[in-house]
């Protein structure tokens, strides 16, 4: 029996007349990649924002690790094991790659009142950061300033910073966007590797990648889910064919 780590039910987000997300329910299980695909403006990022607690939804409930997390702040959800990456990079360009991860990892061992201790010598966060860098293959460039990385490496760092907080659930918003073939392969390997211990929600436009790695695919159109099934079923689903995959 698979273990559900994150569950959103009846999530709706309205902005004025626009219904960006319409009664979406979604479950993420440990050991699986659940892909959410859809055209531009379908509401995928908005869904991730709501699940991660960026802002409260107009309607809907969220359960994280079996607890009602609907009213938890974003920070609390992160501390309880929910990591997310952003569609646009949110790295700290003036910090080294290592410090980007170390600072994120520090969130798990916050001791702000110990004002006399050097944060760089905080063992727990240094170890967590090194592990995250190792996992995401950035160890070689760890002393470099994050702003000087290549685009692909910045995307990797975006993920590494998520991993640094040692989450159980990962919400990844287009981690492959703008990556070359080689970088894409490396990222897919990383995701396959992460799949074991984590529940992953993957928003992605690269269909080859999605069908390669996803265990389940949810298709959104104009805020609503039109299908949610295994990749094989999605491939032959007539609604999906007409609405989205059309030319694929």
């Amino acid at each position: 029996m698979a273990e559900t780590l994150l569950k959103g039910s009846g999530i709706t987000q309205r902005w004025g007349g626009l219904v960006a997300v319409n009664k979406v329910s979604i479950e993420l299980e440990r050991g699986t990649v659940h892909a959410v695909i859809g055209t531009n403006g379908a509401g995928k990022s908005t869904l991730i924002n709501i699940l991660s607690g960026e802002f409260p939804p107009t309607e809907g409930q969220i359960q994280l690790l079996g607890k009602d997390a609907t009213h938890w702040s974003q920070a609390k959800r992160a501390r309880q094991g929910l990591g997310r990456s952003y569609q646009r990079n949110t790295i700290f360009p003036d910090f080294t790659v290592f410090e980007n991860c170390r600072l994120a990892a520090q969130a798990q061992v916050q001791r702000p009142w110990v004002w006399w201790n050097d944060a760089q010598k905080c063992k727990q966060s240094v170890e967590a950061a090194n592990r995250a860098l190792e996992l995401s293959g950035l160890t070689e460039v760890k002393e470099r300033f994050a702003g000087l990385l290549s685009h692909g490496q910045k995307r990797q760092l975006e993920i590494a910073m998520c991993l640094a907080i040692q989450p159980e659930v990962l919400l990844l918003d287009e981690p492959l966007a703008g990556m070359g073939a080689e970088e894409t392969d490396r990222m897919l390997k990383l995701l396959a590797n992460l799949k074991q211990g984590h529940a992953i929600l993957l928003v992605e436009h690269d269909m080859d990648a999605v069908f390669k790695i996803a265990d389940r695919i949810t298709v959104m159109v104009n805020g609503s889910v039109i299908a949610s099934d295994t990749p094989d079923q999605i491939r032959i689903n007539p609604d999906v064919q007409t609405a989205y995959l059309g030319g694929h």
Partner: protein
Amino acid sequence: MDKFFSGQFLFVGLLFAGLALYPLFGSSYGLDLVSKIMIYAILAMSLELLVGSTGLVCFGQAAFFGIGAYIAVLFSPESESASLLWLLPASILAAATYALFVGALSLRTKGVYFIMVTLAFAQMAYYVVHDTKLGGGTDGIYLYFKPILGSVIDLNDAKVLYFFTWVFLVWTFVFLAILLRSHFGRVLAGIRINEQRMRASGFSTYPYKLAAFTTSGGIAGLAGFLFAVKDGFVNPEMMSWHLSGALLIMIILGGLGHLRGAIIGAFAFVFLQEFFKSPAIFGDFAKHWQLGLGLTIIACVALLPKGLVGLPEVLRKRLYGSRQPRDAQVVLK
């Protein structure tokens, strides 16, 4: 990081040593001027904690300074010296408490609104001392007996006061330098660059910002205490927005994001002010000192985008052309 620290500490160490030796040859006018600058430097560092380190542009720092100063005078008995032991903590605590209150409300806003709200709260404090009996109105109040600590420290003596101020200048710098590299300081830096990402990582940013704001207010209160004791006098101008604005100019002039920038900025600002105010140099034109000061500051900021702390780098580039310094090449490779 270590390199950055050693460079910073070398320069500041020399500066502090120079300041400690100054009373050996300085005139009493000079001593008073340098005391004033050291106090402004403490105050500017308190603002740097907010603006340069956390990215919170506070336009009401003068209020916390003024509260520290007024408490020092109002709580002093009329015909004898108060004890430093409780008067100084009282000043710091009062300023920090007001900062806690102002921060709790203003930190719910962002950007320009934050600037305006901090200004509004500072103006509130200003009008309380300006328009009520409590603060002595526009005339201000005198402090006839300066605080003492038994027979060890007597702040009525200008030299003692000078060293007392010097100790707190060094203390503030060291305290903030250590604070900024701690867990707490790193979170502030993260908030400055990308608060959203900090929240997504699991930091509740509001309490961090509030703690920074309160700490900053307390240090500004310390500066206010020192200023009131130095001058033996307080008036509402200490809380005016002109001072809040001047402090922002000091830290920008010195170089945002560097503690020593706040100290350098305070020196540069006051020296420039004295220079353009001097009738010996400018004759009648000295009346228009603000014009000269303003133009010089604009020129400085235009030529030195990183402030005065960036001056060595600019000079190095001038001297060696556009060649990259060696360690930058390694990074860029």
